[in-house]
């Protein structure tokens, strides 16, 4: 997995480079938007981390140009100006996610992994969260090395949770997106499927421990690979 970091501040950039490298990514770094644009045009990166406040062309303009050229690389935006947050979050500027400085490295890594997970599930038809992998092509799931037997509904729900992680998935939205006109899903049914999924994840053997589906009362569920406290 290859990531381009476009960041002018050396301390932040070297921290990012080192942190991402340590997490197993291959990292290139440029200090301005222009070389960043060139690099992204010539090399197939899996993700770009782009600072908004760059000297010369700013990060938003860089993203706009990339999208105009049809380069669909996922972009995680870093910003020191919270006034940008609403524009990035609310308007479709082409960024896929954003983080406000200062941020914690684990938080950044989680966002990076989530973005790559989503884009890879499209590209390589494999969706992974820690040891949990869903293979879209063969419709098979495995936890570490052990295969995980899932029913159709369980698969659907797990896929939605994994695509959204580390965000909480609204139960009502799960119901709406998974209901077909000939096959209605009820919130109660979702609860039953989730409880079955938990049992299957907990009962799995080997190195697959540590995947948890958390309940947020009144909203829904979140899946993560942090062991339960």
């Amino acid at each position, binding site marked *: 997995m290859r990531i381009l970091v476009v960041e002018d501040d050396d*301390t932040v950039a070297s921290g990012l480079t*080192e942190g991402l490298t*340590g997490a197993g990514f291959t990292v290139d770094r440029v200090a301005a938007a222009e070389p960043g644009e060139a690099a992204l045009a010539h090399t197939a990166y899996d993700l770009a981390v782009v600072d908004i406040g760059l000297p010369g062309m700013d990060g938003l303009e860089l993203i706009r140009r990339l999208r105009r050229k049809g380069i669909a690389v996922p972009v995680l935006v870093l910003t*020191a100006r919270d006034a940008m947050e*609403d524009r990035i979050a609310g308007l479709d500027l082409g960024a896929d996610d954003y983080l406000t*400085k*200062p*941020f914690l490295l684990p938080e950044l890594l989680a966002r990076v992994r989530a973005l790559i997970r989503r884009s890879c599930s499209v590209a390589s038809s494999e969706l992974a969260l820690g040891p949990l992998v869903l293979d879209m092509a063969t419709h098979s799931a495995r936890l570490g090395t052990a295969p995980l037997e899932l029913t159709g509904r369980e698969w659907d729900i797990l896929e939605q949770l994994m695509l959204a992680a580390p965000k909480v998935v609204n139960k009502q939205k799960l119901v709406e997106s998974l209901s077909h006109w000939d096959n209605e899903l009820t919130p109660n049914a979702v609860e039953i499927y989730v409880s079955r999924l938990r049992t299957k994840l907990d009962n799995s053997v080997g190195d697959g421990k540590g995947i948890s589906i*958390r309940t947020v*009362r009144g909203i829904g569920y979140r899946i993560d690979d942090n062991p339960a406290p």
Partner: protein
Amino acid sequence: MTIRRLDVLLSRPRGSLWGRLMLFLLAPLLVLSALSIVSDYRSNLAQSNEAYDHALTSSAVALAALIGVHHGELRVDLPPSAEAMLRIDPVDKVFFAVFDSGNRRIAGDVELENKASVDEGLNPDFHDDVIKGQNVRVVTYRARGSGGEAVIVVAETVHKREKAATQAATKTATADFLLVMATLLTVFFGVRLALAPLTGLSTSIAQRTPSDLRPLPDSGVPSEVRPLVGAINQLMGNLRSAHEAQQAFLTNAAHQLRTPIAGLQTQLELAAETLPAEARPRMERLRDAFRRLSHLTHQMLALARSSAEADLAHEFQRTDLQTLCEEAASEFLDAALAKNIDLGFETEKTEVQGSRWLLRELLANLIDNAIRYTQEGGHVTVRCGHKGAGIGYLEVEDNGAGIPAEKQAHIFDRFYRADSQQPGTGLGLSIVQEVTQRHSATITLDRPASGQGSKFCITFPKDPATG
């Protein structure tokens, strides 16, 4: 002495404009009416003198008719009845005397010796004199007959003259007094009416909050006061731009701090991984300090952006509180899990007019506080919904220790921390309050129904879109 006092009064910056107006009107009016009373009295006295002088002259002329010549000498043939007629007067005492050309008194009262006027130019001639300590009016009439010149002097005390003049003066004084009183009343109400715009102006200034630095409206203000309003507005403008500059500096400083803090924080986390185990506790403390530093920077920025001076109008948009709650769920789930706190939501679609960013900060601070001050295994519940048509609310309830009543008055003060044992910036609830105010919303703090913990509720103003 009086002039000095007046100087002091004129130059005294304080004191009521009102009092000054009354003083400068009342004092001259009283002096003028006093002068008017004196001059009236004098002119009345002159008038009554003229009338009574005429009567006095008649007596003198009547006496002159009684003068005859006997053996070459002048004699006055005055029968007692005539003398009685002459002297009869209910009020005043009348004196008379007749002198011959040798200034010998040939008839009449001894008191008039040497009282005749010496000026021969006027006939009859009047003057004022004193007899036995009493003021008298004296007429000197020179009659020339066959026996030579006779000087007839008639005098009377001035009681009835004074009485008449006093009566007339009392009448005019009463009229003067009534006029002064009427003038004062007119001025009193007139000034009050005229100063009413000033009273209105001062009330509108007095009712302002300290942060309200908008210019005063100068419509409906009298032209004399307009320069004052203009000067106040200029001052307001200066204060406002000073405040704005301060806010801009704070915002900018907080922004500028973020990148170096981000750099330090990532470097620190990386360093922590490579250090030997014995350095871990120190590293943990460092990491903790940095987390607090970055939190504080963020809080200060939030406070600056939610201040009254910040221009928020362009940020206001329809914002769904339910969406904000869902986002907060993702943000705070880990913190809640770390303390084994049950974080729950009871929400419905609730649209309010507001700044997304600030409302997110408000909610984040309330949830952060709730999780921070609730014991392991506790419950935190976030609610949003409507308290009637178009009145949205946002509520965060916990079953933690709660805030003691005596500390509740201070919880919105900047840097105040009700529980000094807990780490925190002391800015969270200040931000909550500022954001609440920017949205014209109200905040209440109650005990939850369970009787334990705290329940903060933000109630938004009625949404005009719902009619």
